[in-house]
């Protein structure tokens, strides 16, 4: 008998320390993406397009070629890369402000064209990097620095449901909403991320996974409470599930 590694940092991570706050779910999702890239054996041809926001440094955390797009433009950059070099695997990593506010047009049109790229969308209902302002996905009643009295539908409109909007677009090949606040959810999310990459690798269409994530710092909660808050509030507004699956079962 001997001790063998059962779990360790995936090779597609660069080993640089993450710049995220303690307990922030970005790191979990980074690791899952890296594990999927390792398992698919695509590290040497995968390019990451990082966004503007807390994960602006994401390109530093992966052992991949990468870039940072202008705020909201990750899917336009990814489109240019993939159209010019269809043999590469291209994914964007975007937050809710980037993908669902300033980048709404790019998101919808890349999805609608069925761009062969993959998007991992972190929805934590707030702008983290800039200090806790209201996001397009901020929940009703939720207090942020720019909705200090709580988001009201009359004043700020309703939380935008990205998956529900995108699911109508025929270019979408895989679309799911998930969370990572329990080990079971983490395992599940990895499967979704893998399928979103397979949608690209099998040349079927656009793949996106929305991950409901915590922002303990700007939510003003400790990491454990923030994890519970996902179940108590976020999931009620944003139901989990698979919205589009043209990838089918993995063999």
């Amino acid at each position, binding site marked *: *008998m*001997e*001790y*063998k*590694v*059962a*779990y*360790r*940092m995936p090779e597609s*991570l660069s080993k640089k*320390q*993450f710049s*995220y*706050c*303690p*307990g*922030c*779910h*970005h*790191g*979990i999702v*980074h*690791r899952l993406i890296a594990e999927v890239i390792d398992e698919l054996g695509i590290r040497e041809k995968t390019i990451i397009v990082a966004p503007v926001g807390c994960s602006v440094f994401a390109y530093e955390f992966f052992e991949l070629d990468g870039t940072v797009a202008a705020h909201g433009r990750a899917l336009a950059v990814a489109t240019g890369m993939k159209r010019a070099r269809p043999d590469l695997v291209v994914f964007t990593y975007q937050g809710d402000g980037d993908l669902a506010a300033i980048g709404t047009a790019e998101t919808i049109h890349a999805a609608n064209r069925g761009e062969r790229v993959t998007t991992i969308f972190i929805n934590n209902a707030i702008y983290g990097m800039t200090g806790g302002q209201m996001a397009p996905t901020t929940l009703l009643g939720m207090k942020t620095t720019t909705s200090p009295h709580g988001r009201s539908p009359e004043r700020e409109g309703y939380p935008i449901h990205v998956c529900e909007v995108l699911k109508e677009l025929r270019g979408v090949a895989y679309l799911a909403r998930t969370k990572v606040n*329990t*080990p079971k959810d*983490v*395992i599940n999310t990895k499967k979704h991320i893998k399928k979103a990459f397979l949608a690209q690798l099998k040349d079927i269409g656009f793949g996106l996974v929305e991950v409901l994530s915590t922002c*303990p710092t700007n939510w003003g909660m*400790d*990491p*454990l409470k923030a*994890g519970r808050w996902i179940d108590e509030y976020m999931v009620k507004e944003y139901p989990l599930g698979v919205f589009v699956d043209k990838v089918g079962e993995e063999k």
Partner: protein
Amino acid sequence: MKKAYIEIDEERCKGCGLCISVCPQKIIRFSERFNSKGYHPAEQNDPEGKCNGCGFCYMMCPDVCITVYRLTPVRGETQ
């Protein structure tokens, strides 16, 4: 011989406590030490050898600090 154990990269750890909260055996705790960032890192405390290498701590760790080792038969051995 323990069935499994974990190693925690204490310098990488930010002391968020997510690994502690999901450990089914309740054998991870905050260290009394500080790391260079000023956090109390997580540490395994498993004198009874309860760790079975389930990997929950690894899965929940947002800073990828944890490596999980399991006792595994080598080639030709039976358990």
